[in-house]
């Protein structure tokens, strides 16, 4: 099992290694824009009791960035399944669906960690104040796993590239702005807040903000993320195995 996971991860690592420089530079663009526009630009006119707006948004940017990176890391599986048919190689091999899924999730987590490291570095250069801990990385990994699972599930189920793009439009984009990344969800109307509180990115933002600013950790949020990751894992396995029946 470990060998099989390693093989699937090896493939993703080889692909990443070939374009590591490009990956690093491209991952700097969005955080730079967010930090400049929201942190330095808009942030100067925002007053917060707890510190600067830049300090406030850094955990939010990390949360939404890890969501985007991990999702986009695995959606190439869609092209491998639908267009290149290279996914068949894994169906023919004596490896389990679980090993394949874990290998792919690890690849997504690695990309997410690299891009988070870039944001942390940039945020420090911009003068943001925050602290990191092991719990922070645990939340980062959980968030990456959840959204890699969203990408994996969509890649297994959807039949066209257009439909894949719609996942980004209808799921990721609203979450990017609504889930406590750029402002506190406490200011939202009750009904909207209830809906937003059901989404995983809200809990990642909450947890990351608490951890980086030395606040209390909400264990319920951690539990919700674990539930999302577990349910997502099972759904992905089922979707992968279902391909054998089609």
């Amino acid at each position, binding site marked *: 099992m470990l*060998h*099989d996971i390693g*093989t699937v991860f*090896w*493939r993703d690592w*080889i*692909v990443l290694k*070939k374009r590591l420089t490009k990956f690093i530079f491209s991952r700097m663009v969005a955080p730079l824009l967010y930090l400049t526009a929201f942190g330095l630009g808009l942030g100067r006119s925002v007053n917060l009791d707890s510190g600067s707006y830049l300090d406030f948004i850094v955990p939010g940017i990390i949360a939404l960035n890890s969501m985007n990176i991990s999702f986009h890391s695995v959606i*190439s599986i869609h092209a*491998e399944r639908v267009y*290149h*048919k*290279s996914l*068949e*190689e*894994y*169906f*023919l*091999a*004596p*490896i389990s669906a679980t090993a394949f899924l874990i290998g792919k999730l690890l690849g997504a987590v690695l990309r997410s960690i690299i891009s988070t490291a870039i944001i942390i570095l940039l945020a420090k250069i911009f003068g943001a104040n925050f602290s990191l801990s092991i719990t922070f990385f645990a939340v980062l990994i959980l968030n990456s796993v959840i959204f890699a699972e969203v990408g994996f599930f969509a890649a297994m189920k959807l039949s066209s590239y257009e439909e894949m793009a719609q996942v980004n439009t209808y799921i990721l984009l609203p979450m990017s702005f609504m889930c406590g990344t750029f402002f506190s969800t406490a200011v939202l109307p009750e009904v909207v807040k209830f809906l937003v509180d059901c989404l995983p990115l809200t809990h990642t933002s909450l947890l990351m903000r608490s951890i980086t600013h030395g606040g209390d950790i909400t264990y319920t949020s951690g539990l919700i993320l674990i539930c999302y990751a577990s349910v997502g894992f099972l759904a992905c396995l089922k979707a992968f195995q279902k391909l*054998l*029946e*089609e």
Partner: protein
Amino acid sequence: MIEIKNLVKIFPHRNANKNYTLKTAVDNLNLSIRRNEIFGVLGKNGAGKTTLIRLLTMQLSPTSGNIFYDNEPVEKNSAKIKRLIGVVPQHINFDQELNVGENLELHARLFGIEKNLRRKKISDLLEYLELGDCVNENVRKLSGGMKRRLLIARALIHEPQILFLDEPTVALDPQVRRKIWSLIEDLQKKGATIILTTHYIEEAEKLCQRVAILKTGKLIALDTPKNLCEKFAAKNLEEVFIKLTGQKEQI
């Protein structure tokens, strides 16, 4: 060696009115494939050849029926049986992000070939298939014939006992086609069992010890090319095929 018993595969099919109907791709198939033979599967487009290969190679689950490899049912021994088989698919399905060598290495790793053996096997196979200079080439840049040979190289890395070739010479020029024929015969001499689907009746007649002809998922004939010609009073296998399926295939 391979026993197929009452094999059925039914797919949900969306018709022009966007309603779902059921389409039987393989219909109550019974046959056995012997060790070390080259076994041909013939049929018109949509006859069920590729579905049969996908069922035999565990890329699809049957709706009902059983497949046995050396009397072992596939559903209970899939990992073990997968190590015995190699598959050359109809379409080119390399990992587009990996080069020639990396594609072969991925396959070798997936089949658990040890690190110290991998490099040697890859280099030997690429030499054998006259692709020795291509190890670092992008797979997208290879010619059609080179891609076909690379598919065969990939399928052979883990030294399978049974090789499935799904239309291995489609769209290839005569020289490359003959090269692949001699390769198939060479593999049989080395002890492999080969299951071949093809639209080229001449290919089946030249290579196969026995052929099965499918029509709408049903087995309509099974014998040696010679016996089929005698049975249907035909000059060659192509005539048999036309008599049974009512369609002239490509030659």
